[in-house]
């Protein structure tokens, strides 16, 4: 069969919010607002909050990015009716912070059937990023599961796996995890190609 070539990517640019988070861009609100809150009253699982920033190679905060997350539900299943598992947030135009309210996902299977530690897929779109960047956030309170995780094992080097593991900032009813993403340079986050 004659193969077509994939449409090439272009940067999402600084005004990505118009199409993806329109209320934030200053457009009238619609159903896509509050996309960073993945949980509702009936959502099963341990509620968590994720906060973080994105820094560039000069150490500056990236304040015009759009971040998407995609995750399993508490039972390790993706895309169920009760829990979509997809969220979006902008890095704040002033502070550079992003935040999500979600649940801690269950473990999922690697392609070969081995178990993967609980994690959340992150995708980053911004001016100056020509093809969206993909990474994963793992949990600091899953030491045994992380040690057995096939992806973290492929990343291997402790200074690199450290870029993928969030820090627990607060406990309580809704624990807060901090996930700091570094696009370039010292502490550069590990990015994936699937």
């Amino acid at each position: 069969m004659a193969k077509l070539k994939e449409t090439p990517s272009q940067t999402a640019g600084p005004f990505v919010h118009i199409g993806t988070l329109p209320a934030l861009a200053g457009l009238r609100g619609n159903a896509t607002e509050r996309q960073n809150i993945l949980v509702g009253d009936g959502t099963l699982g341990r509620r968590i909050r994720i906060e973080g920033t994105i820094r560039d190679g000069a150490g500056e905060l990236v304040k015009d990015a759009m971040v998407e997350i995609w995750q399993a539900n508490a039972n390790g299943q993706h895309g169920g009716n009760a829990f979509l598992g997809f969220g979006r947030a902008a890095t704040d135009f002033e502070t550079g912070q992003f935040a999500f309210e979600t649940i801690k996902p269950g473990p999922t299977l690697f392609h070969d059937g081995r178990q993967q530690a609980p994690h959340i897929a992150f995708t980053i779109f911004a001016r100056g990023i020509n093809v969206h960047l993909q990474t994963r956030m793992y949990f600091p309170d899953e030491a045994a599961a992380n040690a057995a995780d096939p992806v973290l094992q492929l990343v291997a080097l402790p200074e690199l796996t450290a870029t993928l593991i969030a820090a627990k900032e607060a406990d309580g009813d809704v624990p807060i995890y901090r996930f700091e993403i570094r696009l370039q340079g010292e502490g550069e986050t590990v990015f994936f190609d699937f």
Partner: protein
Amino acid sequence: MSEPIRFARRDRRWHPAADSPGYKSTTYRAPRRALLQLPQSVGELTGPVFGHAKLDPLDNDLIRNYATEGEAVGERIIVHGKVLDEDGRPVPGALIEIWQANAGGKYRHVNDKYRAALDPNFGGCGRVISDAEGAYSFRTIRPGPYPFPNGNCDWRPAHIHLSIFGSAFVQRLVTQIYFEGDPLIPLCPIVNTIRDPRAVASLIAKLDMTEMRPFDSLAYRFDVVLRGRDATTFESGAR
């Protein structure tokens, strides 16, 4: 349970490089380390499903979906085509999100400081979901070119941003489409992050007089191609 479809690898030479010296914003935003290649597992082979129920009937009509009095100003166009995969299979149910500047090259965004005027009847945001044959269509105005700081002053050709969700997260794509005949295309540092001229050509929508609406709108055709199946993964195993 049947084995999920796996997807062919992304041809990274066809896509723009992360670090593109002509496009200054990449200087500090391009990772230095190579991407780590991973096999596709369930999280990559699934993706959010957005139903038609969530869309408003005017979501794919940018001429009217923000208008309070009359309609948006500008050259009225229809953009239509198909969402296909690399094997030519239609991709139904693909969500396409659209954003663009108005006819004067100004975005309705708190951070756009360009001097051109806003159009009170134009928001520049739309959505459409491909049908059972992969077809999509939206109506808008042709956006204007605009300047942007890139060392000095460079100009963007007229373009529309598209964000596409296929059936799996690995098919996720954000791109920009350009218009046939625009002399700014070869001058644009963002277009020129793509090295292969055939890849640039594949981002240019073609004037399509067969779909123009008499005394109403011109039409442009643009087919979106998402990643296709990996023909070699009938057996399991790491790739």
